[in-house]
């Protein structure tokens, strides 16, 4: 194997295990160096399939490289670098190891050329991300991580069964675009969708991510859902059902984020919302739409990480995470506030930010395809993003009332990471060509026309106007909103508990009735025989028994003589 085609994901996965044996002093060299080595490897990969190993009758293709896989691997590497910089203050080694294995396996998924390799990295990703949540320690994180893990094991099982059915059906393990005409591909799609936080299993995301550490949540936001977007993009472009699933995710994310009080859970719901845009684009399936999805995944990872970094900075400095406890922080955390606003403008696709050049490609694709309803829904959703993430998040955390908290900006490593990602958000917004040149299909789209800019500004600023007009309706309360996880946290346990208690009671009654009847039967028989004259209790003298044995033996002897 040449160095140039070494699987880039393995650099992070193998490197992760060097982190614990490295002293604290030299650890940053490793955690900042490994992502850069990975990035260099990704960019040096030519198109084609490498690192092929035979497994029984099949071949494992560890590296299948083309523009799409390189794009995702690039942003995953940049994310790992920025996240590691942000996490330099993170003292828990378990989290760092888990994060590197997690990032490496996500890159492994992106380069997997066959379904078996894909599944292997998919499962490593599930275990590693669980450990990121679990590494926080304590009962709460244990409970959350186990719920998270069970959902992903379920998704992984769907995927495994789907892959097996697909291999039996087609005889091929190659990972290419699939038609939804057999059970195998339907199950594969379902497995992918669990990781994309599609309904009905969407609550794992807003349940688990906000419970991770200040740095852990930054990494979690990037990999699982976007790896799912990648495999959907590759496996099911143009599958119409994805349009409806995506639209549902978009509005589910907005509505739940509007109701939420926990700042990082607002951002978690907004991940579902943004992935909804991508899933819709994959469903539309034109070259324009798929380009838009790839571009949006790239920009989304950066600005969502930036938003979670700013939220993490607030959590790190104040230890608080509820909007009801926060407010007025802009006075003492100016840099964090500015970075959070840049992230918020990017997610709202404000002109001159990265979201503007990527998300508008998806709505343009809907317009080009004359998908009237979808286009109007996407426009409404763009307005809603500004409402729930663009304004709500910075407003309630950094402005609104004065909470009296005066934390300073976070340590330099965290500030540097935020500045880096804020810079990328604006840089991509000003020079979209850099991103456009990496997309899978040639781009002719021009985001900066006067009409488009004015219309987008109208849409967004009037959404902002609506926010401030309706501010009294948005007052934060100490509440959560019941989500799909209520079914497996409350309903199913309650139903099962009741069912089992009913079964238990019935079972007990039947046993008791049976024992009673048996008892009565035995009493009856014993009563019948409790006198010496009874059928079974007559006593025979031993002498008569000996006599009869002698008679039988004599008879036996007699018969054996006369034969």
């Amino acid at each position: 194997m040449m160095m140039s085609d070494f699987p880039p994901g393995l650099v992070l996965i193998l490197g992760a295990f060097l982190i614990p044996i490295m002293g604290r002093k030299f650890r940053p060299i490793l955690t900042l160096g490994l992502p850069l080595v990975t990035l260099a490897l990704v960019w040096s990969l030519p198109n084609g399939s490498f690192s092929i190993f035979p497994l029984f009758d099949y071949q494992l293709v560890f590296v299948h490289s083309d523009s799409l896989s390189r794009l995702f691997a690039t942003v995953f590497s940049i994310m790992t670098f920025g996240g590691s910089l942000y996490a330099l203050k993170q003292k828990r080694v378990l989290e760092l190891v888990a994060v590197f294995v997690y990032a490496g396996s996500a890159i492994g998924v992106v380069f997997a050329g066959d379904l078996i390799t894909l599944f292997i990295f998919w499962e490593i990703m599930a275990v590693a991300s669980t450990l990121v949540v679990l590494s926080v320690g304590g009962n709460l994180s244990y409970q959350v991580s186990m719920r998270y893990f069970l959902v992903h094991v379920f998704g992984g099982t769907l995927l495994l069964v789907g892959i097996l059915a697909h291999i039996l059906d087609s005889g091929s393990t190659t990972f290419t675009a699939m038609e939804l005409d057999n059970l195998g591909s339907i199950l594969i799609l379902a497995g992918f969708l669990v990781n994309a936080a599609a309904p009905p299993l969407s609550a794992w995301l807003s349940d688990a991510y906000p419970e991770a550490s200040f740095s852990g949540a930054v990494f979690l936001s990037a990999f699982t859902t976007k790896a799912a977007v990648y495999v959907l993009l590759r496996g099911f472009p143009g599958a119409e059902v994805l349009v409806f699933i995506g639209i549902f995710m978009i509005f589910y994310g907005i509505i739940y984020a509007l109701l939420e009080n926990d700042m990082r859970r607002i951002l978690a719901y907004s991940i579902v919302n943004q992935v909804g845009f991508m899933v819709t684009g994959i469903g539309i399936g034109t070259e324009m739409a798929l380009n838009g999805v790839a571009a949006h995944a790239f920009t989304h990872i950066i600005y969502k990480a930036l938003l979670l970094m700013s939220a993490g900075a607030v959590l790190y400095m104040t230890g608080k995470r509820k909007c009801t406890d926060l407010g007025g922080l802009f006075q003492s955390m100016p840099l964090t506030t500015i970075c959070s606003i840049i992230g918020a403008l990017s997610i709202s696709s404000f002109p001159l930010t990265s979201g503007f050049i990527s998300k508008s490609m998806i709505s343009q694709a809907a317009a080009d395809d004359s998908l009237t309803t979808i286009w109007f829904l996407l426009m409404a959703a763009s307005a809603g993003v500004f409402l729930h993430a663009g304004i709500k998040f910075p407003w309630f955390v950094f402005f609104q009332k004065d909470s009296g908290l005066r934390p300073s900006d976070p340590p330099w490593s965290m500030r540097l990471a935020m500045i880096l990602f804020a810079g990328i958000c604006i840089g991509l917004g000003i020079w979209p060509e850099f991103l456009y040149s990496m997309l899978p299909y040639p781009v002719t789209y021009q985001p900066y026309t006067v009409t488009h800019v004015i219309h987008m500004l109208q849409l967004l600023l009037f959404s902002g106007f609506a926010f401030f007009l309706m501010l009294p309706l948005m007052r934060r309360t100490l509440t959560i909103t019941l989500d799909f996880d209520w079914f497996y946290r409350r309903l199913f346990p309650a139903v099962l508990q009741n069912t089992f208690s009913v079964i238990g009671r019935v079972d007990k009654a039947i046993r008791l009735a049976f024992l009673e009847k048996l008892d009565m039967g035995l009493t009856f028989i014993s009563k019948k025989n409790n006198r010496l004259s009874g059928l079974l209790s007559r006593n025979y003298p031993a002498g008569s028994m000996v006599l009869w044995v002698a008679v039988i033996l004599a008879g036996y002897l007699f018969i054996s003589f006369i034969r």
Partner: protein
Amino acid sequence: MNNEQQGKHWLVRQDTVRLLWRGGLAVLSLLVIADFFVHAHPYFQIDGTFGFYAWFGLLVCAGMVLFAKALGIFLKRKDTYYDDE
């Protein structure tokens, strides 16, 4: 300006907030007026009407806030709801 206002950060003083509201409303009106001058090329019918993006944004956002509020009546719980796990 009274003493209470004096002690506050300049950005949250009443005068500044009033100024921000006025500035904001001016920007909003300018954006709508700009619709006279830009060359609209609607994809469908209604999105070519005057100030479409402005009123559409305002209305759908109001709609979403109200919908969320209504849903909240049924689905909101105290944030200690799951604490017994």
